[in-house]
C-alpha cells in the first residue's frame, strides 16, 4: 500500500445485488404504506385503491440511489479516507480572513438589501421570517456553544432557559409594565439563575448521564409552564405581550408613534427593522462576550475542562465554579433570546419550547463544529434559513400538484441535510480550533539547543 493505493474498482455485481436488495426491502416496506390507499366514497363505504405507479416510482428511486451510492459516493469516501490530510491551501486562509468582515457587512446591510430587491410590501416577510428567525437561532446556537462546544457539557434541555427568558419578560411586562430594556437583563439574570440551579445537581455527571438529566429538566420546565395555569395560562399561553419601544417611542400608528414622530408614513416595517437590529445586536453581544471570555482564565478553563477534568483540578482550577459559570453564561444568552422572542411575537405558549427546539439548537452546534462560532452561524443559516426557504418554493406545486405543501417536508429535508453534512464532515462544518493565544515574537533557538541531548 506504500505507493498510494489505486482506488478500488467498484464491484458491479455486488452493487447491483445491493441495489436489488434495497429495492426489494423498499417494496416490502412501502407496499402497505404507499401501494394501498383506503378512501371513503359518498356512501361512506371504504374503498381500497392501489397506487402502483407511485409505489414503483419510489422503489426505483431508492434502488437507483443505492446504485449511485455504490458507484459514486462510496468510492469517493474511500478515496478521501486514503488521501493524507492536506494542509489548507493559502487561498483558504485569505478567504477566511475576508469572510467574517464580509458576513458582518452583509447582515448589517441585510434590511436595506431586502428593501431594495423585494420592495416595501414583501420586505417584512423576508426580514422577519428569514432574518430575525435565523438570527434568533444563531444567538441560541452561540449560547449553547458555550456549554456544549467549549465546556463540553452535553445539554439537551437548553430550551428551558429560552422559556424562562420568554416567560420572565412576558409575565413581568404584563404584570408590572416594566419596559423591555429593564426586563432584558432581568430575564437574562433569571435564566442564568436557573442555569446554576440546574448546574448544581448535575455537577458530577458527564456525557450521556448529563444529557438525560438536562433533557428531563427541559421537560420539567415545559410541563410546569403547561400546568401552572394561574401563572402561565397553560396551553393557551400569554397574549398581548407589550412590544419593545424605540427608547420609549412605540411602533404604532398613533400620533406619538415612531412613524409620526419621525414624520414617516405608518408601516409595520419600522418595527420589523428595529427588531432585526435588536436581535443582531444581541447576537453580536453573545459572540463578542464569548470571544473575550475565551481569552480569559475562565474561558480557557472551560475548554480545558472539556479535555480533562482531573488535570484541571490538579492545576488549581475550581471545576465546580467553572461548570456553573458555563451553565450560567449559556443560560443567560438563552434568556436574552427568550425575552426578545416574547417581545417580537407578542404571544408565547409552551408549544414554542418543546424538546424539538433543544434538539434543533444542539444540531446547529454539532453540525457547525463544536466550539466554532463561524461554524455555528453557518449551520444556523443553513438549517433554519433552509427550512424557511422551503415555504417559498411555490414552483414545486407545479411539479407535485397544487395540493403539495413544501413546508410539510421541512423536517424530512432537515434530517436529510443533517445526514449529508455528517457524511461529508463528520466532525461538523468547521473543525479547526482557533488558539486563544499565540506567541507574538518568534524566538530563534540556536540549533544546538534543539538537538537531542547526549549524556
Amino acid at each position, binding site marked *: 500500500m506504500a505507493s498510494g493505493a489505486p482506488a478500488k474498482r467498484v464491484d458491479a455485481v455486488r452493487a447491483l445485488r445491493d441495489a436489488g436488495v434495497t429495492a426489494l426491502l423498499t417494496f416490502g416496506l412501502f407496499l402497505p404504506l404507499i401501494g394501498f390507499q383506503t378512501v371513503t366514497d359518498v356512501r361512506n363505504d371504504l374503498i381500497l385503491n392501489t397506487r402502483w405507479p407511485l409505489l414503483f416510482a419510489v422503489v426505483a428511486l431508492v434502488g437507483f440511489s443505492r446504485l449511485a451510492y455504490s458507484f459514486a459516493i462510496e468510492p469517493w469516501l474511500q478515496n478521501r479516507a486514503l488521501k493524507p490530510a492536506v494542509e489548507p491551501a493559502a487561498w483558504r486562509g485569505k478567504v477566511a480572513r475576508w469572510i467574517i468582515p464580509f458576513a458582518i457587512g452583509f447582515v448589517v446591510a441585510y434590511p436595506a438589501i431586502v428593501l431594495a430587491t423585494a420592495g416595501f410590501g414583501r420586505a417584512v416577510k423576508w426580514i422577519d421570517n428569514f432574518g430575525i428567525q435565523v438570527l434568533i437561532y444563531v444567538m441560541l446556537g452561540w449560547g449553547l456553544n458555550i456549554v456544549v462546544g467549549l465546556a463540553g457539557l452535553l445539554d439537551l434541555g437548553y430550551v428551558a432557559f429560552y422559556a424562562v427568558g420568554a416567560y420572565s419578560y412576558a409575565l413581568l411586562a404584563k404584570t408590572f409594565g416594566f419596559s423591555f430594556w429593564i426586563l432584558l437583563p432581568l430575564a437574562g439574570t433569571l435564566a442564568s439563575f436557573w442555569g446554576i440551579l440546574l448546574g448544581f445537581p448535575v455537577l458530577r455527571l458527564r456525557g450521556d448521564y448529563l444529557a438525560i438529566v438536562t433533557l428531563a429538566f427541559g421537560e420539567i420546565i415545559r410541563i410546569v409552564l403547561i400546568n401552572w395555569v394561574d401563572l402561565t395560562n397553560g396551553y393557551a399561553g400569554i397574549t398581548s405581550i407589550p412590544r419593545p419601544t424605540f427608547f420609549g417611542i412605540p411602533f404604532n400608528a398613533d400620533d406619538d408613534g415612531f412613524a409620526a414622530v419621525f414624520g414617516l408614513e405608518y408601516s409595520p416595517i419600522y418595527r420589523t427593522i428595529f427588531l432585526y437590529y435588536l436581535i443582531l445586536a444581541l447576537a453580536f453581544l453573545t459572540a463578542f462576550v464569548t470571544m473575550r471570555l475565551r481569552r480569559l*482564565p475562565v474561558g*480557557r*478553563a472551560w*475548554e*480545558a475542562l*472539556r*479535555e*480533562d477534568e*482531573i*488535570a*484541571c*483540578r*490538579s*492545576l*488549581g*482550577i*475550581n*471545576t465546580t465554579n467553572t461548570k456553573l459559570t458555563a451553565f450560567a453564561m449559556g443560560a443567560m444568552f438563552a434568556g436574552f433570546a427568550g425575552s426578545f422572542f416574547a417581545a417580537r411575537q407578542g404571544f408565547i405558549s409552551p408549544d414554542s419550547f418543546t424538546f424539538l427546539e433543544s434538539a434543533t439548537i444542539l444540531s446547529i452546534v454539532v453540525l457547525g463544529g463544536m466550539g466554532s462560532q463561524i461554524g455555528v452561524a453557518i449551520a444556523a443559516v443553513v438549517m433554519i434559513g433552509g427550512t424557511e426557504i422551503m415555504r417559498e418554493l411555490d414552483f414545486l406545486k407545479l411539479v407535485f400538484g397544487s395540493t403539495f405543501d413544501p413546508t410539510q417536508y421541512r423536517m424530512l429535508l432537515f434530517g436529510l441535510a443533517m445526514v449529508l453534512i455528517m457524511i461529508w464532515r463528520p466532525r461538523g462544518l468547521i473543525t479547526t*480550533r482557533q*488558539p*486563544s*493565544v*499565540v*506567541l507574538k515574537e518568534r*524566538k530563534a*533557538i540556536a540549533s544546538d*539547543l*534543539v538537538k*537531542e*541531548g*547526549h*549524556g
Partner: protein
Amino acid sequence: MTTPLLTVRSVKTFYGRVMALKGVDLDVNEGEIVTLIGANGAGKSTLMMTVCGNPRAREGMIDFAGQNITRMPTHEIARLKLAQSPEGRRIFSRMTVLENLQMGATTADPSHFKRDLDRVLTLFPRLQQRISQRGGTLSGGEQQMLAIARALMAQPRLLLLDEPSLGLAPLVVRQIFDAIKTLNAEDGLTVFLVEQNAYHALKLAHRGYVMVNGFITMSGTGHELLERPEIKSAYLEGGRH
C-alpha cells in the same frame, strides 16, 4: 533539622472497600529529590493522587508546608504550590502547547509568566519548536515534557512526577532526568518522583522509598538502596546498563 515540606503519616486510602494504601509514612524535605519505587499496582500513583486530595485519604494525615491538607479540595491544594505531572500525562490535547502551559500557570503570579515560560522552554527546547502545535499531536516524549513543563508553570514548591519515563526512548529519559536534576540544583526545586526505572531514579534521588502492596517496606538514601540485595534482585535485575 527543620520540619519536612511534605509529611505523610499513616495514610490509608480506599477504592470502595479495597484498601490501596495501608498506612503510609513518608517525608519529603525541602530541596530534596525523593523517589518512590515499587511493582505495578503497589499503590504509588494512589499515593501521589492522595497527596493531591483525589481520592482523599480515609485515615492518617498529610501536611504540606506546615498546613494540614488531608481534607482540602484538590484545587486548593494546587494553590499551595504543589504541582503534579500525573500518570498518563493528562495534557489538554485539543489545546496548543502554549495554551497548555498557560493552563499550568493558573495559580501562578501572572507577572512572572514570561519569565517562567522562557525557563521551561529553555529546559525543553523541543516545546519551543512545537509551541503552537496541538498537544494531542505531540509525540509521547514531547507530551511528557509538556506535562512536566505545565506543572512547572505553576511555580511549584513541590513537584510530583508520576513515571515521567514511561514509554520513552532511553535518550529522552536521559533528557528528562537531566532536566529534573537541573531544576533541583539550579532552582532548588523539591521533587517527589515515582519511577519504574529504579536504577536511574535511585541514582538521581537523594533518598528513596520502596512500596509493596500499599506499605512502605524500605527507605534510605539512593546509594544505600541501590546496594541492597533485595532491591537488586527485585527491581534492578536486567534493568542496569
